[in-house]
Structures are given as C-alpha cells and as structure tokens.
C-alpha cells in the first residue's frame, strides 16, 4: 500500500534513493548541490541504507567517483544541479561512452552569468549531446517515479547508459507537495538486483574500459553503438513505464497526451509548466476550444517520429523552451520538433516561445496568450515564429 505524504520534491527524490539503496553514492555536498543528498546522507547516518556514501571535493570528482564505482560493477547514483552539472561536463561524456548505467538527479537551475539560482533548463539542455538519457518530471510525484524507473532503463542490457532525472529547481525541488510513496519492498522488487555484465572486478571476464584506442581504433564504432543503445532505450522506457503503471497506477511513456484526441491546437512543454498549461487547456475546453497539450518526458532520446505522428493532423503547435540556444535563434526543443516534422506529408504550423529563464514566473495569463496566438495561427493569421514569453520589453 502506498503512503501519502507531504514532502518537498528533493525529499521525494531522497526517498526514492533510500528505497533503491544503491551500492555507491558519490556527491559534492555543498552549493550548488541540492538537499537531495543532504536528506540521503541522513538515511546513511541512520543506517537505513547500505550505500557507501562518498563525499568528494567537487562535482567533477563526484562524477569521476561514480564512474569508477560503476565500472567496478556497482549500482551508482548521484545528484547535482546547475553549475554543478556544468563542472561535471567532461565526465558526463565518459560515463556515457563507457556505457555505465549511473542514475543522477539534476535539479534544473540556470547557469551564470549573471548569477541567478532559479529554475530553467539551460543546465541539462547543454548536456543533451553527452549521451545520457534525459527524463523530465512535471512534479514531485513524477520525479520520485522517474528515479525508480530510471534504474531499470539504465541497467537494461539493451541500453546500459546513464540516465538524468530532471526536476524544476525550487518550483518542484523546494515546494512541499502531496504525493504517494511506494512500499520499500515494492521498490526493491521493481528495481531488482543489478547484473552489471562486464566490470573491472571480475577476474573471470577481464575487461579494459575507456583505454586509448589508437589512431586507427574503433572510436567511431563505439559511438555508433551508443546511438543504437539510446534508440533501444525508447522501447525499454515504454515497457518500464507500463510495468511501473501496473504496480503503482501511474503509467509513463515517452510523452503524455492531454486532450489531444480532437485537438486542433497544442502546446508541447516539459517540466512543471506542463501543469500550468494543463490548467489552461481545462479552461479552454470548458469554453469549447479544441486545445490540447503534449508533455514531453523523454528529451533524450528525442521521440521524433512519435511526436510527428501525434501532431500530424493539428492546425498549429507551439513549443515552449525553458532554455535559450544563443545564436540558434530558436529554443532546443523547438528545433527538434520542427526537424521531426520535415518529412511529414501533413504537418501543423509551428511556433516557439522561450520562457521562464532565470526563474521568471510563467502564470496562467502567459499560457493563455500562447493559445490565443495558436488560434490566430490556425485561423491563417501570421504569428512570429520565435518569441519571448514574459520578457520585460
């Protein structure tokens, strides 16, 4: 039986870690770190987990220690945020290149400068090409649920890749919400025991990992294999999401469709703003407007053909990006969705909004403005392709 609690998103993530009880957690315990590891270290101190908890001197070292422990055959987790993720940069690629199924929370917060501690998706968007699977969470419940599913996705033999579980800084991480925790035994059974395949401490199957492969080596082939692995993760993510649903009553896929059956206009959005968008869709539906929403959960791998199929019959679609890709003149999710539609015979008009940078609040009124623009666009009026939502001009 699930237990209903009043806790913050960070505490929810820490409970998921406690229930998973990983072999090793290596983390940098100071700002920009979040309270997830602080809460988790309490569980360690109280003996509620068997985890070897390693505090290190930087986020770079945190990921390095995670890589070492994972290569040695351990189930490994860590957490980070913002500048912390930025400092991990080179090690992120190594974790993915070595095909290590490390699971990490990233509490989405912006990158300096100027100094700003608040939510946006700049940090993880910058890491989108590092080879990690990226799963966004709308609220604390999803952050908790995603953490548990991430273990299964990362460790699946067809995948064997690290997973980043993303949740919106402060809006979700520090807000107290109502959510359901699974029983410890349910989680234990769901994640099962880790079967590492090749690892460095197995003398019967000796292996080398990450060595210099020479000028004429197989780097190219390794990268190609990584691409195949992350493609495989789509089906695994869907299967694990269904299995999780059978256990918890909360199913997950690559994205969630809300009021999309007969929708003529829709917003594609990630993270907590999906909730605010849903509230606006409810209002619009009450007024008879055929509005829908797609909440994107998996950003890596990007579900391009699946999304193209989901929006093919629509009149107009807006993609909301909580990150700027400076110099690209459009947000990262928009570029991906637009690319996904290029080969479609039927496709909607599509526009982009950059919103919420540095924690700028996005209220119902701004989302209503987006749907109002979509109505114009669907009606044949011209709307600017890329615009800024909530910018002071």
């Amino acid at each position, binding site marked *: 039986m699930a237990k*209903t609690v*009043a806790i913050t998103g960070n505490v929810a993530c820490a409970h998921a870690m406690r229930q998973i009880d990983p072999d090793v957690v290596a983390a940098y315990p100071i700002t920009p770190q979040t309270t997830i590891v602080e809460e988790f270290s309490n569980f360690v101190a109280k003996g509620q987990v068997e985890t070897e908890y390693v505090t290190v001197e930087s986020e770079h070292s945190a990921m390095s220690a995670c890589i070492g422990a994972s290569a040695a055959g351990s189930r490994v987790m860590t957490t980070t945020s913002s500048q912390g993720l930025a400092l991990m940069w080179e090690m992120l690629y190594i974790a993915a290149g070595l095909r290590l199924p490390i699971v990490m929370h990233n509490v989405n917060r912006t990158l300096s400068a100027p100094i700003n501690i608040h939510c946006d998706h700049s940090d993880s968007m910058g890491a989108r090409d590092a080879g990690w699977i990226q799963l966004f969470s709308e609220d604390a419940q999803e952050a908790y649920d995603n953490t548990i599913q991430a273990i299964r996705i990362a460790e699946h033999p067809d995948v064997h890749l690290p997973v980043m579980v993303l949740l919106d800084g402060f*809006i979700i991480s*520090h807000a*107290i919400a109502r959510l359901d925790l699974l029983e410890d035994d349910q989680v234990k059974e769901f994640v099962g025991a880790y079967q590492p395949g090749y690892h460095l401490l197995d003398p019967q199957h000796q292996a080398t990992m990450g060595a210099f492969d020479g000028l004429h080596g197989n780097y190219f082939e390794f990268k190609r294999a990584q691409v195949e692995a992350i493609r495989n993760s789509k089906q695994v993510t869907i299967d694990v999401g269904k299995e999780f649903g059978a256990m918890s009553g909360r199913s997950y896929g690559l994205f969630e469709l809300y009021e999309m059956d007969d929708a003529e206009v829709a917003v594609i959005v990630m993270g907590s703003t999906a909730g*605010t968008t849903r*509230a606006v869709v409810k209002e619009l539906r009450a007024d008879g407007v055929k509005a829908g929403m797609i909440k994107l959960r998996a950003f890596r791998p990007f579900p391009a053909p699946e999304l193209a199929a989901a929006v093919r019959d629509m009149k107009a679609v807006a993609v909301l990006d909580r990150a700027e890709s400076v110099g690209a003149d459009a947000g990262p999710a928009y570029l991906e969705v637009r690319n996904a539609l290029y080969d479609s015979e039927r496709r909607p008009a599509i526009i982009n909004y950059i919103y919420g940078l540095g924690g700028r*609040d*996005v209220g119902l009124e701004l989302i209503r403005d987006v749907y109002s623009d979509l109505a114009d666009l669907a009606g044949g009026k011209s709307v600017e392709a890329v615009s800024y939502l909530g910018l002071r001009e």
Partner: protein
Amino acid sequence: MTAAKLVAEAALRQDQYFQASPEYGPERMGAPIQAFTRISAEPIDIFCGVTNPDIVVVLDPTLLGAVDVTDGMPEGGTLLVNTADEPAVIREQTGFASGKVATVDATQIAIDTIGKAIPNTPMLGALLKATGIMDIDGVLEHVRTSFGKKFSQEIIEGNVNAVRRAYEEVKIG
C-alpha cells in the same frame, strides 16, 4: 516555511491537496520572505507564483509600511496580521476596504505559551478561525503527533495552547 509546512501537513490529514513554496532570497532566519500555499480539495495543476491570494497572512507587522500586502487580493479576501492593534487600525493603514481583516497578537501569545517570540504556530490558530479552511481539532491532533516525535511534552502543549489561544483571541472586523 515552518508555518507553510505545518499548514500543508495539516491539510494532508484532512485529505486536501496543497502546494507550499517559499520564494528564495536572503537565507537568514527572520529575514523578510514571501511564502505561498495553495490548498484544494482537487489535485493542483498550476505551478506558478500566487498573484491573486484569497488569504494573506502577515507575520511581521513592521512590513505593512514597506510592502503593499493586499496587492492582487480579490474583494472578499482575508487579511490576517500579527499585531496587538484592532482590525480597524489595520484596515485604515492598508486601505483594504473590501474584505475581511483579522488581527491577533501572535508574538505575545507565543511568548506566553512557547516562551519564544516565534509567532508561526499561533498564527495558524488565528488563520483557522478567520478563514475556516480547516477544522481546528484535526490541526491540534497533527501538532501533537508531528511535534511529538522531536519535542518534549512541555513544548508540544505550549504549541497546542498557542494555536488554541490565537483561535480564541483573533479579532475579526
């Protein structure tokens, strides 16, 4: 934030949905901050700042001169202030004409019952009376069980008395 957590947990006991979030800034105890709470019988979708609060609770009355605490409040909203003044004085000071104004000397009640000038717990009692958002018995039960894990009987009874006294003493005008 402590007060917001208390409200959220009390709401959970009564099978309500809620969101409680602080606005982060100066991280020093007692510094002026805003914190927001939403309570609903239905699951809450929206994840944005509260701009039109039905209820505003002011823990530090010295802020009344510096901040427009009634900004965005609808007609018929409730303004609750920790002060020894009468509601009429606060109504005059804030120019909040349309809704309900409630006052309670929560700091004094806290000093009398808990022994410290921390008005959070008594303000919860005043909030319950002024708004009727939750039943006081359930909240007192929650204070007893949640404080019971960490604090002595003396502190628990102090907090229970603080909630009850503020509930009885709050003036609504």
